[in-house]
């Protein structure tokens, strides 16, 4: 197994210009952090924050791949378009999430997800 790409991560400090790997690496970290957020937060809003992080890392991936991978001459800006649509969905998602959150709060007086376990067993 060769880890020659590890060197390209270091190249940020040695060579001019950024490369695809840098963005992917950051996006991976963001994704993992978002995941941890989702899993460890007891607060529903915290889970929402985690989801935002994960979606952001996804958009970042789209943009990075679009930017760095070679394309034909008449290529459409597919990366930005994907980003736009994802952002639209994110807006929707957070709106619905907020609605559900408030509803949960009205109903059970809390937004602790561990206590919203009526479907247990």
């Amino acid at each position, binding site marked *: 197994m060769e880890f020659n790409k590890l060197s390209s991560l270091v190249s940020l400090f040695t060579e001019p210009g950024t490369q695809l790997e840098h963005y992917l690496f950051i996006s991976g970290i963001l994704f*993992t952090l978002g995941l941890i957020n989702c*899993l460890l937060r007891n607060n529903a809003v915290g889970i929402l924050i985690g989801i935002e992080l994960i979606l952001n890392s996804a958009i970042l991936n789209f943009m990075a791949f679009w930017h760095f991978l070679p394309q034909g001459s008449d290529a459409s800006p597919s990366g930005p378009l994907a980003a736009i649509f994802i952002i639209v969905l994110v807006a929707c998602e957070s709106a619905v999430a907020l609605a559900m959150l408030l509803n949960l709060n009205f109903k059970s007086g809390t*937004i602790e997800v561990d206590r919203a376990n009526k479907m247990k067993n």
Partner: protein
Amino acid sequence: MEILGENICFIIITAFILGGAFLATFLKDITSAAFSLFFTLFGIAGYYILLNSDFIAVTQVMVYVGGVLILIIFGILLTNRDFNHNPNTRLKKISVYLTSLVLFSIVLWPIITSKKLADNIKGDRYALALTSDIGEALTTDWIFNFILAGIVLLLILIASAFLIRRNDSSNGI
């Protein structure tokens, strides 16, 4: 050793993003976490500028920072903040960290090992998206998706309004 401004910008922005993300993840206080998310989202907008698409950067700032983040903060303010009765157990924490670590390595694995990426990125011509390009694409080839997105937005608007309305009768939602 010549280092361009792009590299410097990238390093600074990365510091912002990662710092924000780590704070958002590990801060106990949810309000502080939401505010630290601000740095992350803003930094990602900076990335988009580095990636030659200003329009997306502006959209990111407007929708995320101006919309979603505000929504999250509203959510925090509107809900009951009295919780943390049962903090996470040690077993749970360990399993979550372990899982995330494994997932991270899975995500990282192709970045480190694959050779195809290395060959492809040698090209000089990086993609560039002018706002007019995006507008043209949205109104020609992608018109259907565009309309669909609009319909979805409308539906979500109505659905959220329906969900959120206070119902006096007991059967709620």
